[in-house]
């Protein structure tokens, strides 16, 4: 029993905890939870709690034996929302095989493996996401058109706004769970909000995003509204993305920073961006994993549908934010493809792998995109060598199938499961008869 675990056991006694929720994430990024009583916790720390993985997306059939969920005591938190009642705490778990080795099906392990590889090269990987989501009125049936709770726009301050109260409550609750919020505001679409989390190492951040989604849903419920992270719920308005700022540190030094270089981006930073761009298409199925993700990606506006980078160019896929003097440590690159409904563990892992590949192989960074990439013609884009990202889940999966980079990063098991699941999603989607067809075709044909 180590000190951390003792601390958890002591807190549980002091705070009269009745239930401990053990959290983990399936391959598609859905949060899973097993509740145990505090009495079982000591065993859980020592050996893990056994469960049958076969019922959970992506866990089945790795190894015949059961799996073990072993809580990470560093992630111990009380759950502050009312629906849980008093005295409930949670911890994230690592999933193990019965012999104590990490399970290859655990997305958290996928990210840990990628981070270990970065650590072997001397790097620590930090991320900082800007998470967008919608608030809708409650009580709609699936299939109904969702109704936003307000008609606000970008940065609008709405008097007596639901959204305002909501954000304050959400932020309070996030902070009470140890998740620092940097920034929050109303976004461009009605009912759309954005909350930016303060940067953290990628594993902590992935855990935080999982917590974030749950907190937002819970607070919405308490406020009588419904929160959704669906990438594109309203056809006529921009979708919800998760622009994510990435940086690599070597000890205390930001390796992307080089004073005097163009945009203060070092050679290593340029190679990292080149890696993100060269492997952009094959990792898209992971960063944008749903049929609906492609409606956002190809919905125009500022969505980053083309493989390009730029400085303050909000149509580029990778953006280098404005450099603030004396803030060398803050040098970073912003990837704008991700959406909020991704599995953050897998998404961070593939982004890191793509960037590291660029560093390892010394990729050259292509020319910067200076124009609004959307406004260029196809011919111009071809002349500039700007490729398009996959236009659909089908295309993304087809590209990913051939990617050794993704296979090695995810491990063969998750890679295969993910592909099969997403192919099936595409098949299911393709059989739909959509409102588009009913509205346009039915009257005429």
């Amino acid at each position, binding site marked *: 029993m*180590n*000190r951390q675990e003792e601390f958890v056991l002591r807190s549980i006694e002091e705070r009269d905890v009745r239930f401990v929720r053990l959290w983990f994430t399936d391959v598609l990024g859905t949060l899973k939870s097993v509740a145990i009583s505090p009495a079982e916790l000591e065993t859980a720390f020592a050996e893990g709690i056994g469960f049958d993985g076969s019922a959970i997306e992506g866990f089945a*059939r*790795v190894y*015949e034996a059961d799996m073990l969920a072993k809580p990470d005591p560093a992630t111990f938190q009380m759950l502050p929302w009312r629906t849980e009642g008093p005295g409930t705490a949670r911890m994230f778990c690592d999933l193990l*095989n019965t012999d104590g080795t990490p399970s290859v099906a655990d997305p958290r392990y996928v990210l840990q493996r990628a981070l270990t590889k970065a650590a072997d090269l001397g790097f620590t990987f930090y991320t900082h996401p800007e998470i967008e989501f919608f608030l809708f009125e409650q009580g709609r049936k699936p299939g109904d058109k969702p109704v936003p709770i307000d008609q606000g726009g970008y940065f609008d301050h709405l008097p007596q706004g639901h959204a305002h109260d909501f954000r304050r409550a959400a932020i309070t609750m996030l902070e009470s769970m140890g998740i620092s919020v940097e920034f929050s505001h109303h976004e461009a679409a009605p009912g759309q909000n954005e909350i930016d989390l303060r940067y953290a190492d990628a594993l902590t951040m992935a855990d935080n995003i999982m917590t974030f989604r749950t907190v937002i849903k819970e607070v919405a419920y308490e406020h009588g509204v419904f929160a959704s992270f669906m990438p594109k719920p309203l056809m006529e308005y921009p979708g919800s993305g998760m622009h994510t700022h990435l940086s690599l540190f070597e000890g205390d030094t930001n390796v992307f920073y080089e004073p005097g270089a163009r945009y203060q981006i070092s050679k290593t930073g340029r190679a990292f961006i080149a890696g993100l761009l060269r492997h952009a298409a094959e990792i898209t199925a992971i960063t944008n994993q749903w049929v609906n993700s492609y409606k956002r990606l190809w919905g125009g506006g500022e969505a980053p549908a083309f493989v390009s980078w730029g400085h303050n160019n909000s149509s580029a896929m990778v953006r280098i934010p404005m450099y603030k003097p004396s803030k060398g440590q803050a040098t970073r690159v912003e990837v704008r493809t991700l959406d909020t409904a991704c599995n953050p563990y897998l998404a961070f892992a593939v982004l890191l792998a793509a960037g590291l590949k660029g560093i390892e192989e010394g990729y050259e960074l292509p020319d910067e995109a200076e124009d609004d990439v959307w406004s260029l013609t196809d011919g111009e884009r071809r002349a500039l060598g700007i490729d398009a990202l996959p236009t659909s889940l089908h295309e993304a999966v087809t590209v990913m199938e051939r990617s050794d980079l993704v*296979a090695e990063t995810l491990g063969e098991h998750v890679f295969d499961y993910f592909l099969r699941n997403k192919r099936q999603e595409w098949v299911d989607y393709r059989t739909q008869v959509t409102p588009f067809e009913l509205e346009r075709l039915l009257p005429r044909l």
Partner: protein
Amino acid sequence: MPNPRTSTAHAALARLGFHDPARAERFLRDPCLAGLALEGEDVVVGGLAQALGAVADPDLALLALVRLMEGLQRSSGSHLSALTDALARPGVARDRLLAVMGASTALADHLAAHPEHWSSAADARRLSDRELTAVLVDAVTGRETAAALDALRVAYRRELIGIAALDLTAPSPVDALPDTARSLADLAAAALEAAWVIGRAEVGPDADSVRLSVIGMGKCGGRELNYVSDVDVIFVCEPVGHPGDADGPTDAAGDVDGDAEARAMTVGTHWASAIMRACATATAEGTLWPVDAALRPEGKQGPLVRTVRSHKSYYERWAKTWEFQALLKARHVAGDRELSERYLDEITPMVWQASARENFVEDVQAMRRRVEQHVPAREAERQLKLGPGGLRDVEFSVQLLQLVHGRSDDSLRSRTTLDALAALADGGYIGREDAAVLDEAYRFLRAMEHRIQLHRLRRTHLVPTSDDELRRLGRSMGLTSEPDKAIVEQWQRRAREVRSLHQRLFYRPLLSAVARLGADELRLTPAAAEERLAALGFRDPKGALRHIEALTDGVSRTAAIQRTLLPVMLGWFASGADPDAGLLAFRKVSDELGTVPWYLKMLRDEGDAAERLAHVLSSSRFAAQLLERSPTSAQILGLPGGLRRRTRDQLDATMAAALARYDSPAEAFEAVRTVRRQELFRVIVMDVVDLLDLEEVGHALTDIAASTIGAALQLATRAVETELGEPLGTALMVVGMGRLGGGEMSYASDADVMLVHDPGPSSDGDSEHDPRPDDAELQRRASLVVQELRRLLAISGPEPALGLDVDLRPEGKNGPLVRSLDSYRSYYERWAATWERQALVRAAPVAGDPDLAAAFVALIDPLRYPADGLTSHELRDIRRLKARMESERLPRGADRRTHLKLGTGGLSDVEWTVQVLQLQHAHEVPGLRTTSTLPALRAACEAGLVTTEQAQELTAAWSMASAIRDAGMVWRGRAMESVPSDLRDADGVGRLIGRAPGEGQAMVDAYLRSARHARAVVDELFYGDTPR
């Protein structure tokens, strides 16, 4: 002109051991030594010359002595007269001085530079750690840094002379070793204390704000240091007035303290670096030794100094098993004693809980492998420290037992190897005699190492090779007659003893736990024995203990032999993939063969036999099963040439002999099966110990299957002829298809066959008198033989049956089992379907009439190597059939990714791709006319039909799938259709195909990757997809 006087003295000096008596005489006649050694022609009795004759290297000592006297002549007179006095009288003072100068050129050099230090040798006395510290700290106090560094080196070496003097003149170097090693560690600690003082002065007033202490690790921590080695340390640092043990992130003052702590760490790092420099920097007075702080948390990447709390939180969260093992030696050596003690109070308890950590067993096994590896081959013969049975192996093994048993037994928690060894013996954890042998051997080898290092004060662990050096080494160890040979002999005797270290330390005591001993004899308790078995990798320690008891119980000769064998064999089982199964199988085989004379004799006397048996039994349940049924097969392990692959002719001859011994078909065939069982066992053993590669295993298994079928065919023919009362009248032949035809059988393969008979040409024009029965009768007789053949092979027996699969025959399941050659001809001319021609690519006669075999091959060659290749229609048929098989043939519940034969990128994918290439191109590329997959692939690559990369991907996937299938059967004793989904299976199979222990999951990943790549090639080559 030879001077008779000179030659008398000359001879006397040579007898005393001087290598160069002429030079010695010249020196001894030097005025400053006048009268001390030689009186005219006579050697003074009890004089200097005789005293010199007693040291390791008299010439060296004499030269050093002359240099010393010259040095003293230049300085004040009092020393010179005192030294002359000392040299004149027999006594310890003279002996000590000469011993030092005769054993160490480095210390002789020091004396030449500092002649007044001679008294440190002459008047040597063992100083306590406090005294040593006082001397060295005194030497540096109040000096500028540069001067202090020189003073430290001079004072250090002066004390070293004293230690060496006592060591070299001790009655027995082996007895003196612990005292010497302790004094060396104390001297190193004293030097660190002095360096701490130097560092403090260098840091200046800032040093007042921090507390810094030095923890000794390794041999310095264990107070068992060498003359020259890196000194391992860890630095602990705190701000002055720091609350120290106030902890936890809730501490309100945390931020303020954080700043103070950060400043303190900066100062502490500066200070600690100064300490390291003070010891390691080379000045005009040389250097002491490198200070190595790499054992600290995070190793070389980590900060040089940490607070107690930071150390503790690291060890709680991140530390590896080896770090706890290293901490076992931790002790305060310099600086702030109170701080060190607080550190040790916090850290030490964790050391003794280390064996309860998860992965302890795996970590320990990995550590052991590291200890045993990494000896450069050309040094291996001369190494004292590294490699199996080296000093480090002894130390490591003792520490491991301390960690395992010290958790519940405080008496084992010593930092010093020899003390720990004694405590282990006192507690009954190892046998007293074994402990005594190891104790003596360890001391001897360490003493040797000391003498070797002392000569030039170099850090070396290699035994010298030149005769002169060996001679000096031998004499310094007190060997007088032929010292150069004697030392090698003595050294190798100890090395042999230490090589049996693991059985002495780990395994033999396990026997005592179950033995009936007198009540007063110490023994391992069953609980401790179980702890130890678990730490060695046995998953069911109770069961293992029972087997050990059963094997060694009793007073019989068998039990007595087992008691000597088992400690060694347990070690081999423990390093196998399944130690428990290995031990259990060994018990069963031994129960069966215990009283058979050759069995135990073979294990005891036949070099590799016991090790191979242990290795095979702990890696292969299949081998264990075969051996349980035919225990006598174990004999091959001891026979000369027993592990050589047998040719097809040899197999046929053995089986024919077996057939000939019995009249009854049932008995005769049972004899054939016994031969088959033994041959399978032989192949498994050769496979497991890596005497055969994948393709050779395939050939060997194919030969066994073909011979068995051939013998069964003979027997069946014999039976039918007996019944008919006349010869059959037609020749029979078996064609191997699939893996049998390809020479690629696996352990679990069925034999795919087609059967052909041919009466030969009828004698022309004499048909009425032709005694030959008509065609229908011949067909009936052939069918009878085939029925008998199938019956024989299908008789279920104790070993895996050899299934005969005849589904590939013309008309498939609806066709007759056997056809005449003519019937084949007319069938193929009219009806040959594409799939049948594809199947014929792998057809090769394996048993029966050789002329008929040639005729059959001539018949099918044009079908399988068609001049125009395949038509687009035929190619489409093959592709379509394959696509249908992919969706239909996969067994229920099997995973398409992991199924070895029918899965994506599996065996079928590769084989069909190769077969299509053969059908299309074998007509013009002769190399493709083979029934085997890999040779065909190589030929296709050479002919440019596939690229090198494509051939590599296909070869890799096919080989790995085949290897896993073979290894799966060997490991489990049951066929393995898919990549193992059980972790222990994956580990066992992984080890068999050459992966390191614990890499099972990685093997699965590697297979899936390889198969995925192969499938991409199959999509291109077989299905004609556009290349990616």
